[in-house]
């Protein structure tokens, strides 16, 4: 794949300290490990990338060399940040039609959580919540969509997940949410469990218009 301009510049700095092949390996492995896209830097990406590169450099360079190299990288990324502001919001809509789409949705959600800086526990919790919402769509409505929306308010990043379908609605919603009802497939637990794991939970369901669930989790 073609390198982004930023990637080339980082590689040039690394190449002053490392052989070209090592520089390229370190860069590509650290980018992969940090889950960052250099073409679209998001909130906190700059810091994450620097930390990740620092780890990688520690294996190949003496402390002083690594420090010099990190200083150069830091000033490069700082200058870059002031020129093009990081993309603050990200939006992704995933059609849910089959069981395979559930796996796609929770994978995408997990990746977005990672990018936003959620702890690994919260990544698992949110991915599980997305899995529950997507499964309800497949199981009860047949098809619908999951929309992942990463943004921030007053500098606090959050992930919002919207699950929408035009299925038959949930007839016994109140008893499900109160925990009195658990379906054979375990659905009751899925919905109440999802509610327990998020900061905001909103559900609307009617036989005419289907079901809409919106959940939001803030990065603490």
């Amino acid at each position, binding site marked *: 794949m073609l390198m982004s301009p930023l990637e080339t510049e980082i590689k040039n700095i690394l190449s002053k300290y490392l052989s070209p092949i090592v520089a390229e390996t370190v860069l590509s492995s650290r980018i992969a490990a940090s889950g960052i896209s250099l073409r679209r830097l998001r909130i906190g990406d700059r810091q994450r990338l620097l930390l990740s590169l620092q780890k990688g450099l520690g294996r190949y360079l003496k402390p002083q060399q690594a420090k010099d190299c990190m200083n150069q990288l830091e000033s490069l990324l700082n200058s870059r940040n002031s020129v093009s502001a990081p993309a603050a919001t990200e939006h992704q809509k995933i059609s849910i039609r089959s069981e395979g789409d559930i*796996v796609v949705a929770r994978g995408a959600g997990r990746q977005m959580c990672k990018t936003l800086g959620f702890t690994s526990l919260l990544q698992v919790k949110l991915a599980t919540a997305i899995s529950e919402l997507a499964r309800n769509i497949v199981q009860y409505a047949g098809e619908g969509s999951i929309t992942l929306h990463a943004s921030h308010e007053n500098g606090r990043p959050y992930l919002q997940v919207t699950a929408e379908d035009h299925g038959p609605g949930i007839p016994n919603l109140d008893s499900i949410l109160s925990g009195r009802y658990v379906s054979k497939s375990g659905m009751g637990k*899925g919905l109440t469990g999802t509610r327990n794991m998020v900061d905001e939970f909103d559900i609307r369901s009617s036989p005419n218009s289907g079901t809409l669930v919106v959940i939001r989790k803030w990065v603490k």
Partner: protein
Amino acid sequence: MTIATRIPIIRLYGNLIVSIQVSLSDDLVVALKEDITQNIGDYGARGLIIDLSGIDLMDSYISRSIRDIALISKLMGAQTVISGMDPLVAMTLVEMGLEMNDVRTALTLEDAIDLLGMERVEADDAAFSEFILAGVNSRTAD
């Protein structure tokens, strides 16, 4: 992601060991349920270990399915032990209210093997070791 259509089941000294190292799809879970019950019946397994060390996410459907497998196996006379549950997955399951109270658990596969009291059961085993040892001893004597 690894695409798998079946999860292998290993027969070991009268027990079955299943290690799940792929992302579990619903089809895979259904196939696994069928394969395990079939294997318990055919092989007369006394124990079943389900190793979950490769699982990084379990939702209500998957956890319910694994619990079902354990309960079915119990009905067929095989004890089930679940091992290798990821700490983050465990915390998530508890928060969702999806604990598996009726299933025995172990931290690692080794612990699960101990819990089932698994032992080598080949009849000729002792004789075979004696034969090997005799060979070693005669060589050191030279």
